[in-house]
């Protein structure tokens, strides 16, 4: 969480969260989600991206966010990089890209899972997700690439 870092503001339900732009590889609008019914939470399915079947994580339960009534399971998928692999995060909306000023950055709410800090955007507050924690929650921790 540094000054000058860019954040992609996304929505889970009606709440806004930030995903580190430097870790975002692709934005997929209304991807065709193949469900993985027996996968363990938070994995929910697979999407096809550049010749690869990518796992999709649904963080809404972890973030205690309710899905919007009638919304599709995966209106957007944000593909983030986890070291040597890619993971797609299902989100309800992709909102904007913002660069963080130091004065706008704040701490995470106490005890909040997956959140590394906050970003004030005028009267709004965006919770900044820790990409590594998100990947760890899905069991897809960033692995060191052997050198």
């Amino acid at each position: 969480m540094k000054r000058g870092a860019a954040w992609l503001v996304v929505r889970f339900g009606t709440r806004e969260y930030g995903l580190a732009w430097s870790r975002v590889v692709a934005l997929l609008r209304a991807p065709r989600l193949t469900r993985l019914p027996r996968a363990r939470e938070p994995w929910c399915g697979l999407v096809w991206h550049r010749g690869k079947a990518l796992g999709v994580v649904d963080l809404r339960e972890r973030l205690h966010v309710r899905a919007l009534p009638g919304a599709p399971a995966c209106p957007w998928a944000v593909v983030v990089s986890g070291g040597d692999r890619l993971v797609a995060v299902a989100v309800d909306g992709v909102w904007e890209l913002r660069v963080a000023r130091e004065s706008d950055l704040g701490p995470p709410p106490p005890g909040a899972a997956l959140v590394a800090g906050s970003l004030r955007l005028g009267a709004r507050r965006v919770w900044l997700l820790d990409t590594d924690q998100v990947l760890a929650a899905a069991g897809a921790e960033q692995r060191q690439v052997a050198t």
Partner: protein
Amino acid sequence: MWLPGRVGSRLSTAETARARLQALAVEAASADPGDLRGLAALHTRCETLSADPTVASAARSAADVLASVMLGEYADPRAALAGLLDAPSATAAAPTAGPLAGDPAYSAEFVAEASTLLQTAEVNLLSLETDPSHPEALDAVLRAFHTVKGGAALVGLLDAQTLAHEAEGVLVRVRDGGGELTAAAIDLLFESVDGLRLLVADLSASLATGVAPRPATHLPALVSRLRMAGGSDDECRLGEILVAAGAATAADVDAALAAPLESAGERLGERLVRSGNVSAKEVATALRMQRERHAEHAAEAVRVDPAQLDRLLEASTELTTTLAALRTAPDAGQWSQAAGLTLARLDGLSQELSDLAGGLCLVSLQSVFGRMARLVRDVGVQCGKPVELVLDGAETRVERALAEQLADPLMHLLRNAVDHGLEEPGERAATGKPATARLELRASAAAGEVLVTVSDDGRGLDRERLRRRAVELGALSDGEPLDEETLVRVLCAPGLSTAASVTTVSGRGVGLDVVHRAVQALHGALEVRSERGLGTTFALRLPQNLALLDTLVLGVGEEVFLVAASEVVALLRPQPDRLREDSLHGELLEFEARLLPVRRLRRLFGQGEPTAAAPLPVAVVVDTPGRRLALLADELLGQQQVVVQRLAPELAGTRGIRGAAALGDQRLALVLDAAELEAL
């Protein structure tokens, strides 16, 4: 604790870090100040680099400049970005290799660590002597030499650095598929360990006494032999060329090879010129000839990183599926004739690329067959049965993954054959067979299929005894005949063994079910032919391309599932009276006078119950190791050859799913794992 390898890595990383920072500055100088995404990526790279103390300050400054550009704090952001070009070289720290060289504290730690590493190398070399293709042992020896090399460079022990480097070269060549680790090469590596031990001991003694280490006069010849074994045989060829051209005698070359090095890495040509036996011009001429020969050789073969080959295959697959999506696009019917012809041409090229990429990833079965020869010899000795193993078709080329995964099932089959299939020498003599038994391991490839057979001239299977045991285990109904088709299922029933005694080789009822599972995992089929008194043949039919799978496409609710066609025994629409509930076994399907367990895919994959008006489900009868199973789907949508992708490791545990495949319209379908579904 100081670890030579880590410090060695830090030194090489410093140079890399400076180069990365400079490359980054060049990119930033030409970046568009309005390209937030590009600048954010550069910012992240700066932050990553700032963790390296050798460039930390310069990286942090660059990150600050990038942040200010992104925040619009510069009147002239282009000038600010261009200014980064001056920063890295001005502020990056200088290399630190020099000051550490010869430091007694580091040298003492190197002595301690190197001793441990050389011991590790020696232990693993012993393993390699038994099994030259043991990948873990090979890696362990490689790491040990690599780390010793790094530490030796750090403390200025150049002879040790050179020796470890050349030993590492031999192992790298083997690891990269450049040949077998021969007994002679293993001997050389043992010699290298001994040579390094002597050098480390000398360093240790000089640390204690303050007297400089003795010159290592014995090393140049060993280094030259390692270079030849490792493929860096320039010196050998140079010597041969000079002798052939009459510029030097063989004795001159041998003397130069054995001469002490004046500096680390001194080449043969330099040593010959220094000796005064050969002129610099003659060496230059010989070197030119050597380069020409190398160029000829390079034209025949190049080494490629396996990861790049994998990426090539992926890209080729992506092209195939993208073209398929184009062909099935809604407006495809309205394209002009020219567009249609272009697409047809693209299809042809894509197929050619796919074939070429697939061909590049094939390896021969030589290495696997070599291991089996050793195994049969050892098991034969252990069981007291003289065995002649006939190998045929080792040159058959298969996918690298298939060659790796074939070793285990073949090992089981050959062990079983020697231990149970073959009679004792006395028994063979009594039936008029030669005392030395004959085992045949053959491989061939045709029409995209690899056939591997293991045949013995032993006693053959005792079908009556097998039948009784199978009935006891519930793998066969009482009175059911044991025909060729049932034979595989019965033989592969878990726990089935008719061996009179358990030996260290086999007889625990584990083996053929493992073979069957392995063959099914490779999307292949196992067949058995046996004749009492004459012998048994196991045939493994495997796809030459593992990623390509012929499947049946099943519709289940809103989802699509694929099942390997090789596993499907029958397709039927069972009338309701053919399905029955059993309190012990759950739902069962009556099929060919047997009751098969049923798995309803709708229930297993959360698709809810079908409506009352829905047609009868389709029952797909599949063979799983030791058991048949009926999968109930809503409908059969067709048959399709697909490229199967394994799921990411964190998803690989999803029960009942073996992977995913694109269907051509960018839609993914899950590939079912029938064996796992049976256990659900």
